[in-house]
């Protein structure tokens, strides 16, 4: 891959320099006036139009063939599969339109290249045509809109039951915390004005509901159980982006935003999926290569990579925005419960002080 890239890079640079070196020659008009296209130019540019079309379709094919391996793996959440399906259909629709219209555009440009004495068709209007290409987008878009809105309504208005796990995701420059509601399943009141000492999240110490809350810096989720996230920010806007779960919500200081989803794939399962094994292998090959380079320069090599779900910040939030992440572990419910029992509650944290 690297070699291939280097070849492309060199070829492109060569073409650039070659073209630029011709600048002087080109700027001296030879024969014609050098300012208005003549038949010869029309011929040549028309051919370039076709050539460009080949390049463009080549780029599209290359991208779908090679770059599409970077697509996120299948969604690890319940609603995610309907998301993926809608995305697949939408991309299909737009690619059909793309391929057809671009082909027409460049083919017409080639076919109807100018020639002295040629007569263009005086064709100013046609209501039928206008009607047809107004109504077709209307129908296609109506389909996409209805499909999209049904999915949107389902995602944003999930039916909740008593089993729903409530988790607060707390964002600050530049890290995340998660707060579980504890046994009473109710989050204690909180406000930044209560922040003091170990009480980093500003939980109201007098609120009984808060005593059993559990605050952690690694998000654990039981598989197959609906989780309702409530987002709170301490300082600026952040965005809680869970790419593998097809979920994202901004975290806004002064208000609580929400998003619910049900994780369907455990961390273990996704690590063992064919997609992820291949991806991790590829990444580790790259990292090994880089480590060798780094070590030659006397620097530390890179660690071996193992995939873990993560949550990242996706709204510009300050200098270290690029590294605001939290590990997510999706596990079987019993493992989750075991892990939960090991964590100390907010009340215990205060008592220790």
């Amino acid at each position, binding site marked *: 891959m690297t070699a291939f890239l280097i070849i492309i890079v060199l070829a492109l640079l060569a073409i650039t320099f070659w*073209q630029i070196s011709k600048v002087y020659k080109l700027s001296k008009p030879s024969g014609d006036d050098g*300012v208005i296209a003549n038949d010869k130019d029309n011929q040549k540019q028309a051919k370039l139009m076709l050539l460009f079309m080949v390049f463009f379709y080549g780029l599209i094919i290359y991208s779908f063939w090679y770059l599409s391996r970077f697509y996120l793996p299948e969604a690890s959440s319940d609603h995610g599969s309907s998301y993926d399906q809608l995305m697949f259909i939408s991309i299909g629709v737009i690619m059909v339109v793309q391929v057809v219209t671009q082909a027409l555009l460049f083919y017409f*440009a080639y076919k109807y290249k100018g020639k002295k004495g040629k007569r263009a068709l005086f064709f100013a209007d046609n209501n039928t*045509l206008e009607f047809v290409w107004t109504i077709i987008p209307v129908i296609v878009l109506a389909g996409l809109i209805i499909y*999209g809105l049904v999915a949107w309504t389902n995602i944003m208005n999930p039916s909740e039951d008593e089993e729903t796990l409530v988790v607060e995701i707390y964002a600050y420059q530049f890290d995340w915390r998660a707060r579980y509601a504890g046994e009473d399943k109710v989050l204690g009141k909180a406000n930044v004005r209560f922040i003091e000492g170990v009480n980093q999240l500003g939980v109201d110490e007098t609120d009984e509901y808060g005593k059993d809350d559990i605050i952690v810096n690694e998000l654990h989720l039981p598989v197959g159980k609906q989780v309702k996230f409530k987002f709170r920010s301490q*300082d600026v806007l952040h965005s809680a982006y869970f790419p593998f779960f097809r979920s994202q919500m901004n975290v806004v*200081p002064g208000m609580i935003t929400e998003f619910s989803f049900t994780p369907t794939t455990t961390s273990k399962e996704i690590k063992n999926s064919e997609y992820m094994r291949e991806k991790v292998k590829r990444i580790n090959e790259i990292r090994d290569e880089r480590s060798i380079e780094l070590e030659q320069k006397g620097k530390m090599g890179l660690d071996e990579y193992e995939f873990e779900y993560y949550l990242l*910040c996706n709204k510009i939030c300050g200098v270290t925005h690029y590294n605001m992440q939290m590990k997510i572990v999706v596990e079987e419910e019993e493992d989750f419960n075991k892990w939960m029992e090991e964590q100390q509650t907010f009340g215990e944290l205060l008592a220790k002080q």
Partner: protein
Amino acid sequence: MSVAATTAHSNNHSEAHAHHHHEQSFIEKYIFSTDHKMIAKQYLITGLIMGFIGIAMSLLMRLQLAWPDTEFWIYEALLGKFGEGGVMDPSIYLALVTIHGTIMVFFVLTAGLSGTFSNLLIPLQIGARDMASGFLNMLSYWLFFLSSCIMISSLFVEAGPASAGWTVYPPLSALPQAIGGSGMGMTLWLVSMTIFIASSLLGSLNYIVTVLNLRTEGMSMTRLPLTVWAFFVTAIIGVVSFPVLLSAGLLLLMDRSFGTSFFLSDIYIQGEVLAHQGGSPVLYEHLFWFLGHPEVYIVLLPALGITSEVIATNARKPIFGYRAMVASILAIAFLSTVVWGHHMFVSGMNPFLGSVFTFTTLLIAIPSAVKAFNYITTLWKGNLQFNPAMLFSIGLVSTFITGGLTGIILGDSTLDINVHDTYFVVAHFHLVMGISALYGLFAGVYHWFPKMFGRMMNKNLGYVHFWVTAVGAYGVFFPMHFIGMAGLPRRYYTNTAFPYFDDLSDTNVLISVFAFVTAAAQIVFIYNFISSIFYGKKATQNPWNATTLEWTAPVEHIHGNWYGELPKVYRWSYDYSKLNADESDYIIAGQDYVPQNVPLQEGEEELNH
């Protein structure tokens, strides 16, 4: 009725001028000029200089993204203390992101594109002596110039320029504690934008009044070239939406300086609880995007207008579906003011609103599709003259389609969830508004260069410029969709904090190389532009054999645009290749175009477009 009266008035005015020849001093002619043609050139050159800075910034970003661990002396040379030892500081990366966006959107594509061509073409194409108010027009340019200077000066502030993204969302933009750039740099940003908005409003009001009142005799609204329609509607959108940005900016200024809490609430930063209570950043997002989205069309419509004109002229065919084109401009303009919420699907806004905005957003695809189909049909059975302006116009149609289609993904609230703020968005808006509008700008410059400078640009350099740019621009932005689909967030200083993104690094290198090549091609343009101003071949009066009125004006720039009386208009602006009654020859024998000031010929029917 009133049109005729005003025209008569301006006729008298110009005759009065003709009698006593008015000597202009250097300052009056080149600096504080009230002549729309000079102001257009001032806008263009200022816009190009700003564009140079904006593009240079994007190259620094691409350098950082492609080789995040490599030291480059250029950082230290250009960024000073923010690039010490050849390592780019993360805070200056965000500043580059912010100022690149601001400069390109407002200073290059709003002022540089719409300012240049609205000024140049509105009076010339409607047959007016000048803008309705030359003085306001001059003021508009100088306010723009002042705001450009302030924006550039903000780059030299101790703590760095504004760095909260071009959308400058509070609280990040409101609190200097949150990021260095939100101190003096942000204040200058707000002052600069305030002045810019004033400039834009003066300009827009002038354009609207001029189009409505100063059309020459016979120039009904339905005979206007599509360029003028586009500039006219653009100006209206500007007047409707820019004041809202001003209000957002003023409220932000008050939050920053006077302790109000419009956008701030419950904030604990740097070990301190702030007194602000009760505001909402989401309110700011609403206000910002109420301008921010129409802004996309403020940028794009003039480019589409220019394309309509250039494609028709060079295809030697009338633009297909004139009325549909006007209707779609109006529909786009109307819809553009009711879709802003699609930038806020995951902002915490009520999900029901998200549904409404999905609906309105996808509606806007319909007039856009009509425009694209009409352009393609205009090419069909044409006699295409591949002048550089024509190439850029075809390029525009291509990028407009490619970029517009991904809007269907992003405008769908459901699909937006997972691609929001990723590189998919970056790819989308750069293609649909950035590259498309730049192509429109280039098309305009190549096409109307003879009108501006009385000389022609070199076509061969134009070809090199176009093809390298066309290949490069797709090379940069097409692969970007795919790294966006990999969940790569935009505005990340480096992706190395996430090993998951390690295998995207080759693609990032590829994108950067394309970016450098594309930028190099712009040097060819600058060379062509400058050398043609001084040494270009002298232009003839109507080099492209076009029908519109600006080509009936003399090549040399005169005060009042036409010697003697203003031209009268007898037909629409697209009588290309129209045949006479027995279809034996064109309307005017041997000439495939009929200028708008030529009366209907014997036996000729005026089509009711």
